[in-house]
């Protein structure tokens, strides 16, 4: 499969695939199980787990963090691009199209998440999806005829058993300063990029309100200057609470691992995210 063009979450395309191929993916150190199909060969699953949870330090290229503290992986982009990118600052590592992070393949010997599994995930219709093209002959919309309620329930059951889950997975999303919470179904997204676009749309009204005192015009698109103002005025970072109750930065782990361990999301102001990703914040703040 051709490597999809990388985009930061607002759609500005990446520069070169050379950069991509030399990237390593920073992994979470928590041994959460990877999402593989229950019927998958156990040995593959185990080996995937080991690889995915292997502690990788810092950023691939230049800005390497040998001391083990993880950095905001917005590397490789120019500063301008970075600035454009971040209302929700996002680790670039995860902005690589589908769940199958292509560079994982290229980083010697890492077994891919099997495609059929991913496709099966896409195919199992949640109550919100209705036209998913079948990847294999057996996978057809609405067959076998099992009600969404049952599918979703069994999905949550199997999630708790660490198996691959079909159905939907709603988590609460809070944003600092917003008057109410929202909920998103993580299953309806396949990538971090999709998630962040959706969240951005959901919480747009709040960022607008936040900035209205600066006299900014009602936004109808994302202009560069607008974003830079927002960025300087108030940075937001997307974080999540995982199964262990820890607050983590979104974007470090493979998508599947993320949705299996994510319990809730929180969009925090940059200043509060300092404890999570100090270098990134400093880096952002230093742009102007």
């Amino acid at each position: 499969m051709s490597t999809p063009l990388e985009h930061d979450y607002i759609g500005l395309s990446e520069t070169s695939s050379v950069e991509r191929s030399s990237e390593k993916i920073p992994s979470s150190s928590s041994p959460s199980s990877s999402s593989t199909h229950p019927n998958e060969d156990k040995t593959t699953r185990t080996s995937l787990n080991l690889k995915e949870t292997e502690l990788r330090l810092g950023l691939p290229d230049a800005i390497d963090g040998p001391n083990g503290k993880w950095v905001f992986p917005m590397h490789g982009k120019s500063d301008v691009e970075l600035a454009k990118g971040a209302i929700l600052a996002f680790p670039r590592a995860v902005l690589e199209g589908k769940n199958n992070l292509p560079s994982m393949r290229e980083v010697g010997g890492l077994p891919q998440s099997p495609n059929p599994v991913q496709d099966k995930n896409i195919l199992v219709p949640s109550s919100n999806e209705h036209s998913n093209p079948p990847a294999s002959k057996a996978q057809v919309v609405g067959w076998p005829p099992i009600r969404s309620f049952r599918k979703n329930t069994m999905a949550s059951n199997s999630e708790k058993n660490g198996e691959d889950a079909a159905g939907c997975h709603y988590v609460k999303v809070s944003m600092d300063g917003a008057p109410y919470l929202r909920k998103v179904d993580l299953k309806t997204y396949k990538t971090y990029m999709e998630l962040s676009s959706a969240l951005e749309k959901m919480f747009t009204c709040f960022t607008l309100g936040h900035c209205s005192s600066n006299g900014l015009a009602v936004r109808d698109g994302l202009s560069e200057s607008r974003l830079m103002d927002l960025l300087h005025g108030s940075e937001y970072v997307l974080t999540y609470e995982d199964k262990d109750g820890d607050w983590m930065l979104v974007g470090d782990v493979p998508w599947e691992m993320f949705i299996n361990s994510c319990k809730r999301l929180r969009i925090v102001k940059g200043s509060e995210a300092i404890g999570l990703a100090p270098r990134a914040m400093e880096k952002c703040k230093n742009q102007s």
Partner: protein
Amino acid sequence: MAYSFPDEVLEHVFSFIQSDKDRNAVSLVCKSWYEIERWCRRKVFIGNCYAVSPRMVIRRFPEVRSIKLKGKPHFADFNLVPDGWGGYVLPWIAEMAGAYPWLEEIRLKRMVVTDESLELIAKSFKNFKVLVLFSCEGFSTDGLAAIAASCKNLRELDLRESEVDDLSGHWLAHFPETCTSLVSLNISCLRSDEVSFSALERLVGRCPNLRSLRLNRAVTLDKIANILRRAPQLVDFGTGYYAAELQPDVFSNLAGAFSSCKELKSLSGFWDVVPAYLPALYSICPRLTSLNLSYATIQSPDLIKLVSHCPRLQRLLVLDYVEDSGLEELASSCKDLQELRVFPSDPFGAEPNVSLTEQGLVAVSLGCPKLRSVLYFCRRMSNAALVTIAQNRPNLTRFRLCIIEPKTPDYLTLEPLDVGFGAIVEHCKDLSRLSLSGLLTDHVFEYIGTYGKKLEMLSVAFAGDSDLGLHHVLSGCESLRKLEIRDCPFGDKALLANAAKLETMRSLWMSSCAVSFGACKLLGQKMPKLNVEVIDETEPPDSRPESCPVDKLYIYRSVAGPRFDMPPFVWTMDEAVRILH
């Protein structure tokens, strides 16, 4: 000279006639009976909310106290009906708010219910008692809070299998302290981890008439005992989480609580079960008539043990972990069994993960003389097994078989399963509901048309060879009300040849078949009492040649004319409306 009873006497007599069919018959006797009947009809059932308009119902039946409405087609359960299709209850509530101030009961199935609708219900009906939302969606716990707060005489709140936007568990606290009237509360569909447990406990404690309580997963095992002790009069109970580390005191507390419920006959819930806690149920098992373990991932030995304690069981819902061996045990222990549903634990897996085959069903058909209703998911079937089942159980009224892989033949002979299903319809003369699966040719439809005289609902998938199949069904099944078909090579001919039949049915669904757009238009043109709707999410059907097949087709009879709440991907074939569009 006209001999007749005074109206009041007739009205009194009619008050004993509850069934809709009988009431409809009464209203046809003569004009005066029609008039008297319509003024005293208190319950209305509308099987398709688009078959009639709220105003028409209100005009004919001005004193209704109880209404039941169904919205989306059945295949919506399997995601075949796109979101936004319709089935909105708000227009109904809005009209009834003015016309039926004394409305007491609303039961909805597969409808879109918004918080606005719920708030309107809460505001408009002073004596509101029963709200059942079966497989509905579109509302949140805020709407529920409005119902809880305002409905002073609420007896039933049943949200079975609905999709609720779970904003907060605190809606339960909106039930005022003065509310003591609850008889039935089903919140099993709520997904949130926060249920205001103390509010729930207090509510349960102050409702002495509570008979049916179904909790959601948020309620943990240790809390179940507390709830049961406050409601020992329960007849139907849905547990929450039935899993926890085994602790002797928790176990004995639970067992004690269950044993104090002398009326308990029906159990469900069992999300996540720790088998070690199942013996806590043993004291009530002898009385159990209904057991829903269809979410419980417990293995056959534990299931067998449990089921063998339940000799009075009439209804069992279970996952295929029960396996053939478990069903054999069921067949020998539960001679009162009337309904069996076996669901797949791993429906999307390529290989079977459990040893459940046609043998289990054959065993139950042999051992359970009262068996009437079957829903069975399995991976293999044979004509021989189906014939045996049919011969064993001619009293079957509902038979739904789902062989997981489409077009699977008889595993012994590799032939189609026509003969097997043929035997089912031939022997089971009162069969009213049938779902087919496996490899099937036009022959099976010939059998169905010939023998399925009482068949009211038929579900077909990946079956048949030609229009002849559909023709057999439409021309032969005299009692047919609902027909739903997907992925079958049925085209225009059978449909157009049997157009008149469609007016005698509630609805016909056809998706991924071979019905052309031209035929749909023709049907819409010729049959004004039918609403012919084409669903296509990719592009308008008339952007392609008329001979192109439509993606999805939903035809239903209606006296209300074409509907006007169609989303952009639904096109009516009603000529007048279509041209205006």
